[in-house]
């Protein structure tokens, strides 16, 4: 078979930038199964999910695991997205589901190892002393007792310092729902805290040190 050589010059074409695409267009590409859409979705939404997870869990390394889990699940379920204009809330709902799953996993693990769930929380603060780390670990153990939505609302409002409107937008909830969840989370935490004598005594001791 004779070989014909082409005289058309080859050109190196860079892949098109996807920055200009709206979230809705990106969602449509995801539903259609376009390979590039997963990476673009990752680049746009992974930092948001990471921030949510790190505030809710207190541990960057665990937050990284959550982010990876969220996007793996998203890849499996992308085709079930019915409203392309709701991509952000679709991803947030995945994140909430994964956080719920994670807290269930921790409870189960605590049953298997006969250790309280709080001992499995790996909280790291670079310049915190032992007592502060202790308190933080216990605090995150209390947070983990909240319902996942309450925990994330509390974390975004008070740890990420987001406004109610920003929290509502991030979680695709109404402002009144955010207010209700925040109020409930605060009440429950305050109540649990009152009955956690060890934690309150740690706080008193720390306060005493500062005042001295």
């Amino acid at each position: 078979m004779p070989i014909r050589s082409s005289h058309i010059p080859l050109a190196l074409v860079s892949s098109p930038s996807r920055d200009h695409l709206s979230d809705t267009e990106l969602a449509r590409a995801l539903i259609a199964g376009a390979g590039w859409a997963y990476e673009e979705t990752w680049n746009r939404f992974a930092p948001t999910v990471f921030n949510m997870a790190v505030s809710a869990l207190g541990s960057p390394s665990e937050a990284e695991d959550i982010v990876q889990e969220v996007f793996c699940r998203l890849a499996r379920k992308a085709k079930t997205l019915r409203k392309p204009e709701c991509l952000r809330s679709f991803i947030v709902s995945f994140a909430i589901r994964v956080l719920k799953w994670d807290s269930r996993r921790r409870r189960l693990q605590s049953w298997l190892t006969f250790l309280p769930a709080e001992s499995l929380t790996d909280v790291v603060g670079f310049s915190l002393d032992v007592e502060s780390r202790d308190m933080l670990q216990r605090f995150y153990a209390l947070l983990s007792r909240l319902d996942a939505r309450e925990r994330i609302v509390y974390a975004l409002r008070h740890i990420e310092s987001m406004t109610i409107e920003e929290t509502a937008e991030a979680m695709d909830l109404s402002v009144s729902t955010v207010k209700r969840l925040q109020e409930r989370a605060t009440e429950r935490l305050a109540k649990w805290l009152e009955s956690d004598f060890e934690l309150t005594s740690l706080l008193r001791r720390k306060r005493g040190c500062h005042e001295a």
Partner: protein
Amino acid sequence: MDESRASSPLDELTHLAREARCQVPALTPAELDSHWSLVSTQIALQKSRRRSRVRLAMVGAVATAVVAAWGIPKIGRLPERASTQAALTYNIEGGTVVEGGYLRESGAEAIKLRFSEGTKLVLTPGTRARLRTVNSTGARIAIEHGTTSFQVTPRTEAKWQVDVGPFLVTVKGTVFTVSWDAVKEHFDLKLQRGEVSVTGPISTGEISVKTGQRLVVNLPKKETVITEEDGEGEPGWAGAPVPGTAIPTESPIQDRPTPTASRPSNRNSGMASERRTLGAKSFTGQGWVEAVAAGQWDRVLADVDRAGVKQTLSHASSEELLALADAARYRRRTGLARSALLAERHRFAGSPSALDAAFLLGRLEESRPGERQGQMVEAVRWYDAYLAGAPSGPYASEALGRKMMATKQLRGAPEANSLAREYLRRFPTGSYAGAARALLHYP
């Protein structure tokens, strides 16, 4: 949060969580990329799994039949498997574990802990420590004061963590001794074998320590030194040049002989070949950032020795200069560290890393031995330069705190009062807040 809860315990804890959260940096593009490569691999695996689902279903059916035929007698093994997931057990000699995991000595002898998988711990007499948690992969121990030796049995799933004052040492399988002096805020880790990572109030965030290395951190002086145990002896600062603000030159930093060995071939990246066309034939800083993160200070310094200091300082990138400054600082080549930072200031003037270099130069001046007065004046000058350029930068709290302490040392406490007030106004919970309050109560 409403006013009625202004000073509630919940508020205090939330504030603490916020403080800790602030220390977690956002994901960098490089981290996003590396995580994405993991996620994309998993997604690809999921897809291939889906394609072979039918085949798997058939294999599953066969496997079920096999299990039905062979597996029932083996059900008795299940508790054995579950037991491998259970927490490790331990024996204690020379003491007891009391409430809160506190390890109390029962005599004058050292407390010895032996775990069921072979790990051993020896607490020297007088050490205050707590056994915080024990699980199937390891344990978390807090050393409040004193020295403890560890011999951790290597296992793939092993996870041992040691809180040493404000530091966290993460271990897999290794032999090391770690000390914490709570009064002097002095951290000392000697690694006989293996590798550990240390996080805590160290400027680079995380340090990986390798076999034969010793990491010493003096918190009040903010001094971090890594030495090789066999040759370097006690850590300390030596061979420092006279302070000055001139653009770095070869002269103040020829603190090590230049070996004559030929330079090893480097991986030819685009960046490296570009540098060659610029005339820096023998310089490459490729991989320095990673090398410093992995504790390979000597590799970086050997590269500099081969290429020549002047060549390096005039061709290294901004990140490479900062990596070089860290490597030189950890290996006590203060002159080279200082020159790298000055080069950063000069060549990348106006960039955020040039501002960071100003802060680090201040720290370097404070740490150098020699004429204290002049060094402190110089350090304050660098802190001022940093604060002027980055009033709310990542080191602002530290720079203002150090400036306050240096001013107290130079001109006395009453002179430092206004700085203490400013510090408390801007960073009420910062690490120098206690010192600032003490200064304000100075008679």
